[in-house]
């Protein structure tokens, strides 16, 4: 219990800094007003605190943190939710791609660790992994496309 609490606090601290990165980048890139970004951060951050807490305390179902965050903001912004307009109006000021940008920067940095291992990996596995990535993506896209054309969505 105590350990979980200190873990949650550590994660919350880091998330605060991540919001700072996101805000600075969006101010630089799109010139969004700092006040709007502050409001967006506060509302979004409140939901993240809920998600981090859920992730650390709820073990059944054992969902990844990302899923908890999606689930919580999804439910709170359903049309029946009284908070929906408020949340979308504030957090919606964030640009979707810019929120994901630090993630890709970290993803790039984390590759450094694996570069040494890459040399040991057979080229066959690398090729196969590309096929795995493409075929899972195309497999799903193909099914969606067929179903949606059959029922006339697209």
């Amino acid at each position, binding site marked *: 219990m105590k350990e979980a609490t200190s873990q949650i606090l550590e994660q919350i601290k880091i998330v605060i800094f991540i919001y700072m990165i996101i805000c600075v980048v969006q101010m*630089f890139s799109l010139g969004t007003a700092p006040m709007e970004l502050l409001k967006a951060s506060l509302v979004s951050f409140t939901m993240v605190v809920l998600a981090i807490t859920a992730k650390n305390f709820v073990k059944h179902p054992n969902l990844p943190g990302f899923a908890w965050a999606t689930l919580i903001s*999804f439910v709170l912004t359903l049309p029946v939710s009284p908070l929906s307009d408020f949340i979308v109006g504030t957090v919606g000021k964030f640009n979707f791609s810019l929120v994901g*940008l630090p993630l890709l920067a970290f993803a790039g*940095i984390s590759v450094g660790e*694996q*570069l040494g291992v890459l040399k040991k990996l057979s080229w066959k596995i690398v090729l196969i992994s*590309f096929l795995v990535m493409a075929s899972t993506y195309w497999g799903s*896209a193909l099914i969606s*496309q067929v179903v949606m054309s059959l029922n006339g969505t697209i």
Partner: protein
Amino acid sequence: MEEKTSKVRTGTVNCMIAALIICLIAEAIGPLEFQVMGIDVRIMTMIWAIIIGILLSPHLLGKVIPALQKVISKPEIERSPFLLSMVLYPLGIMFGISAGPQIGVVFEAGLALVLQEFGNMGTMLIALPLAIFMGLGRSSVGATFSLCRDTALGITGDKYGLNSDEGIGTLGTYISGSIFGTLFYSFLAPISLMIGFHPYALAMASGMGSASMMQAATAALVNAAPAYEEQILAYSATSGLLTSITGVYMELFLALPLANLMYKKLHRPIEGLRAKVFGKKA
């Protein structure tokens, strides 16, 4: 204990500063468009962020500029996956608020969204037979039964052990995916759009079991088809959510048994073919 950890360099601070600078540089460069043999090539901002991050590695730019190694080295690199997982929270919120208000749209597409979950088994039609043909043996099963993210490592590790052939296969796809995944999907999404897939279908396909790959695929898709942004985000969010709830069961009860069955049926004929093509027994 507290004092000790505060003195040890955890890499958090440097890694965060590096990420901020990387994002700013990537935004400053912006998208780059040029033509190669008459084909329009567009390098998105997000791709710069990944590439600059990779270049900072002590194995690459760090070798040329030794000072860089003082800022980005082992602690930072080891810390980055954790920091990445923390960005997933604000990002998850973004996905959620795109899907919640659009529940009607999502509901209408419900059938397609649910059925596409089975599309992840597409790996068995293409990747598995080819892996067997390339002589990977039992590793083929481990490498191709799913996208091989953390849950898959758990499953093969549990069932066969990570030192087994199957385990080595899963680890191989896992590592390769960690290195190339985000870059790969950044290019694959616009390419798939070009070869005729509908943006909605690709959005639904984006939730494939890795949040960072999903982010790369979705952001690249939004970038390539900005007019559909709202729906792309809504479909992608729901598909990602569905996969994170059902994924592990699909892998355990459906994908792995199916991969094993396919292997049992296919490995003799394919290995026979391989022996014929290469003129020797694999």
